[in-house]
């Protein structure tokens, strides 16, 4: 197993964020919600490593807590989209016929909406809360998963070893379980990795717009939104949350690249 540089860097970055997210459940330097009006708008120092915001809350702690929230939402959303996508995709790819056509019609209708738009629209219906975001984003991204799963199932079905399985006398169900599904995992894993990144970005964007996780709970997106009025006086407030999002996305992209390189080495870069 040769480890590629980009996958390693990606894994390290994600590992750090994941560690922060887990740590958030247990400990943060300061209480992310605690106001301290005497310590407002302080630049980074030995006490507050990344400074404080307009309410005197410790930025570093809020970032760590935000990591926890974003990660949780993204994981749940990807799990949701993957489950819906996998089930429907397998059914459509397996059964074909009118079931496939109806499912694909509905799926294409949802795909006709750009992701963020659908999420925004759904937020109107479900309201703003952590789980509402999971549902909205999950439904917005599930159609892509359905498409990919279905496509993968369809192509694997045509492979000769699947026909060989039928030749041997294996039933359709056994063939699907033993030969088709295990070989579908790779492209789905790559998509899931990418999707994690899209969801994280979308959640941050929604929070930035004020339609995501409601304050005072911190997410990187709403921290960035809150920093806008103070852009010229408190630069660190604008830089820190954005940097977190960027580094996390970078890590995800590198990890995804590493995965893809293992599967298709022709595209690789050194």
């Amino acid at each position, binding site marked *: 197993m040769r480890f590629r540089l980009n996958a390693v860097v990606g894994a390290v970055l994600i590992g750090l964020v994941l560690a922060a997210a887990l740590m958030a459940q247990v400990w943060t330097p300061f209480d992310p919600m605690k106001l301290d009006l005497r310590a407002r708008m302080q630049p980074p120092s030995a006490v507050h490593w990344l400074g404080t915001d307009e309410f005197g809350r410790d930025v570093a702690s809020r970032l760590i807590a935000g990591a926890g929230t974003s990660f949780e939402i993204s994981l749940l959303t990807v799990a949701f989209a993957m489950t819906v996508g996998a089930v429907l995709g397998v059914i459509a790819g397996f059964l074909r016929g009118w079931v496939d056509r109806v499912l694909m019609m509905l799926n294409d209708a949802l795909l006709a909406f750009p992701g963020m738009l659908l999420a925004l629209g759904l937020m109107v219906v479900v309201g703003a809360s952590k789980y509402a975001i999971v549902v909205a984003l999950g439904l917005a991204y599930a159609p892509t998963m359905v498409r990919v799963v279905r496509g993968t199932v369809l192509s694997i079905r045509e*492979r*000769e*070893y699947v*026909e*060989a*399985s*039928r*030749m*041997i*006398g*294996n039933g359709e169900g056994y063939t699907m379980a033993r*030969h088709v599904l*295990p*070989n579908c995992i790779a492209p789905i894993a790559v998509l899931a990795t990418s999707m994690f990144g899209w969801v994280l970005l979308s959640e941050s964007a929604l929070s930035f717009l004020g339609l995501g996780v409601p304050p005072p709970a911190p997410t990187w997106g709403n921290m960035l939104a809150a920093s806008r009025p103070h852009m010229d006086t408190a630069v660190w407030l604008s830089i820190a949350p954005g940097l977190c999002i960027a580094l996390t996305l970078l890590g995800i992209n590198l990890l995804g690249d590493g995965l893809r390189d293992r599967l298709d080495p022709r595209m690789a870069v050194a």
Partner: protein
Amino acid sequence: MSDPAHDHPLLSVEGLTLAAPSLGVDVVDDLRFHIGRGEFLAVVGESGSGKTMAARAVLGLLPPGIQRTAGRILLDGEDLAAAAEPRIRALRGAAIGMVFQEPMVSLNPALTVGAQLAEGLRLHHKLPRDEIRARSLEMLRRVQIPDPERCLAAHPHEFSGGMRQRIMLASVMLLKPKLLIADEPTTALDTLVQREVLDLMVELARDHDTAVMLITHNLGLVARYASRAVVMRQGRKVEEGQVGEILRRPSHPYTRNLVDALPRRGAAATPVSGEPLLAVRSLRVEFGGRGWLRRNRRRVVAVDGVDLDVRAGETLAVVGGSGSGKTTLGRAVLRLAKANGGEVRFRGRDVLGAGGRDLHDFRMGCQLVFQDPYSSLDPRMRVGAIVAEPLRHLPGMSDADKAARVRGTLEDVGLVGFDARFPHELSGGQRQRVAIARAIVRHPAFVVADEPVSALDMTIQKQVLTLFRALQRRYGFACLFISHDLSAVEEIADRVAVMQSGRIVETGTVAQIYDAPSHPYTRALLEASPTIDLTRMLESAA
């Protein structure tokens, strides 16, 4: 004895060594040969022999991972290996032309044929547009493309493989090169088309006194077209000489192997009487048609009223070109493709309408060996598991029995100890043996083999076919052997059915078909197959 070709050769390769640093091997090792003006040289070898890389090296078109580490390549005395880039580019196309193997991807799909023909002329001869057009049209007529004017404006995907290869030839010969390098130019084509294209190539070469370097693994082509040959193995030249000499009296053991790998007629089997094991009557299979977006797509009849019998223990070969329907026939008989009419009986019982229990019994008695060794094995399963899988349907076999059967079968196919390996660790020939093992592990009565060796090297083909024949004698299964190559089945078939456009045009024993064919299509196939000629020649000389 002075050999004028040798004294002033057109192309002289001296001590060429090509290395692949990342793999740590030499792809070509100290190769030397020459080609005289107007001469036809064949470079023969199997996969891994380095013949393609040597050809690429002449044009300076080596892929990124391969470098020339030693040797000279002299074209009319000028060392191409030492020449500067602009000089090489000036020679490419104008002095040396190259025709490639895959007609489906050797022409740019985004440009018209006319644009691609014109490119070389504009670059090397700087001719005005009407002159280019005139010459292009003339050349297209010469290569017998119907309606050349339309062809110029059309795109490559509108033409079949054979036509594209002609267009390629036209494009290359328009520049009147001194040397034409043809790298397996007809391997992807049908037998009949192959003959036309190669005959055309020879004509064109003669027109312009162009030397030809034909790279091939097919000894039949070598015998028919080349005057001299160079045999390569794993990067080294092992033999060189006049074609007749090399083939009749090969000096190197490898050459002898290659010649021995040519199919010879097998011993005729004693005809079996009684009810046929498999009886096919008026079988009909159609494709295409309905669907609201494909209203106007005509229905294609792939199998048009076919009658066949296969008797227990015998091998019936079904031979035809692409589009003949032979693969569809094989699938329909096994119920892997839907039949639209006719009847198939196995051991007297109906197959096409069978359901449940009957279908299951049918499946137990028949098996299929697929064409592509690279996709017929589940990449996630080990060899042992792949071969054992069919046994799950045999009732009353204990685990120990199954393990013993698997071991025995692997031994039969010569893959002892391979149980724990994965398909990607095996070579093409080994994979095909696993596929055969999987097919026979249940001792079926009937096996359909769909071009099982077409994708393999010649010597490996021979091995696998010999194995197959031995297994057949041992286990006594009947076989429907599907192939596009008449010569390949001579060795293994008892009877042959020739198929064209969905119909069987002739059936008979091997002796009848090969020695006294009656249908014109059969005769055309026999004439077109260079390997058969060669085999006859060798047999008569022996």
